[in-house]
């Protein structure tokens, strides 16, 4: 029956594309997590009356974050072509999409990280200071663990945005479900392929949301 309804869907292609989508998403989520936390920390710590209070550094970081957040993703990919070519040695395939994905998502996540840190009880940071904690102790043993549920739910939102970015990246030949839907589905008017790819992407989104929610809930002891 599936054959009748989806005459043009090739399961092997579907699994390859799913694998590519997952690959792009997971690697870019990891990259976004690292870069986003670094930028978020920088935004937070250089703020007025904070540990590394520094107006200059704060303005620079904020400007970079805001600019990259403002550029539409599809344009970012095109702008980053030379950089991607230099970094990955290619502008095609899943790996070629990674720099744009990470650079596109990290500034967004950085803002969520900053908000999460701002929500950490000032009193707790002060208590740590009163015990003689160094800045890195405050970062790793207070800020990060105390904001963990917010960092995770922020990362879930970002990961879901990244899944849709990977589909867009498909248009420039990055591979994955977006690529499959566009090249094999849309261009050949095979709507069943477009539909199958959509269902797969929605399922992936649901799985990410489910894992994120569960993790965030489990870690929240408030």
């Amino acid at each position: 029956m599936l054959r009748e309804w989806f005459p043009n869907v090739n399961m092997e292609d579907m699994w390859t594309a799913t694998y590519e989508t997952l690959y792009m998403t997971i690697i870019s989520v990891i990259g976004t997590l690292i870069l986003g936390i670094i930028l978020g920390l920088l935004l937070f710590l250089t703020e007025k009356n904070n540990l590394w209070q520094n107006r200059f550094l704060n303005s620079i970081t904020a400007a970079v974050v805001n600019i990259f957040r403002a550029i539409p993703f599809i344009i970012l990919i095109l702008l980053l072509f030379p950089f991607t070519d230099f970094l990955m040695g290619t502008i095609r395939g899943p790996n070629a999409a990674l720099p744009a994905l990470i650079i596109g998502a990290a500034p967004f996540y950085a803002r969520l990280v900053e908000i999460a840190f701002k929500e950490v009880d000032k009193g707790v940071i002060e208590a740590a200071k009163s015990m003689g904690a160094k800045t890195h102790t405050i970062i790793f043993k207070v800020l990060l663990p105390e904001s963990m549920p917010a960092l995770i739910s922020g990362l879930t939102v970002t990961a879901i945005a990244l899944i849709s970015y990977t589909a867009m990246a498909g248009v420039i030949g990055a591979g994955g479900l977006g690529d499959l839907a566009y090249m094999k589905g849309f261009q050949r008017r095979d709507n069943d392929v477009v539909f199958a790819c959509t269902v797969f992407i929605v399922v992936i989104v649901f799985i990410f949301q489910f894992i994120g929610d569960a993790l965030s809930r489990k870690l929240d002891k408030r």
Partner: protein
Amino acid sequence: MISIKGLSKLYKTKHQDVKAVDNVSLDIKKGEIYGVIGYSGAGKSTFIRLINRLEEPSNGEVLINDTNITGLSVGKLRKERQKIGMIFQHFNLLWSRTVYDNIAFPLEIAGVPSRERRDTVLELIELVGLKGREQAYPSQLSGGQKQRVGIARALANDPDVLLCDEATSALDPETTDDILDLLVSINEKLNLTIIMITHEMHVIQKICHRVAVMDQGKVVEHGDVLDVFVKPQSKTAKRFVQQLSPLEHKQDTLHRFITKDENSEVVKLHFIGNDAKRALITDVIKRFDIEVNILQGSISPTQEGAYGTLYVELKGAANTIQETTQYIRTSGVEVEVIRDVT
């Protein structure tokens, strides 16, 4: 042991400059519980935060065991802070850590190896009466229990001083008393110096040995708790003392007991310190052929003994009344015979 000299903090804001702490000088002895009382905005929190430099002083110095805290480099200050425990009104526990891990936190900061940490933490949990709750998270504890964790955490690195900023202000009266009892027992057991910030006279009365009264950044009065209670000098101190003995200065109600009859006298008994605990009235009744009629009064227990006043009517033969008042005087209670009220 703690010597504070000319300590000031000036906050510069857009609209005005605020002298939150204004030229405060105090000496605090080893092992004493020193209270600082004042109304909201008096500068108490700023003052206590200047001691461990959570706030940088604008002027003056703080010496703890001859270490000049105000002159320390950032690195040395961090080391020194490990020897200055602090507890807070809102406890400031890490919600992400269990009771055990919260208490272990200052030990991690001090670089104590995890095997040694265990013994210290378990000992502290025992000390503050939280045995069996090691694996609970702060959200599963009551306010009083949270403050116990806060106290254990503050004691972890065996500090010389404990700074308490409104440590009981978020607790109900009963829990407040439990926490105050715990602080007294720790003070006695460890000979720990405690600086206690509060806006409640009850706290000062219950546990402090000496007290400073703060108003608008200045210390307007300081001394032994009993002295400040008995003879408050400043307006602020008087207002605080009145909180505790609302019956004071209502002598007019005594009026009808005061007569020309020489077989009846109204006397004011003024208890200061240790003697108030003794069953004086019972003692007097047993010893003399006299009737004692209690009219009004209030007695407040403090760390240095009870203090307060009691108005009684003594009925009996004139010379027995004379002997009785003499006897009460010799037992260390001030006696004032009230002949008329104006």
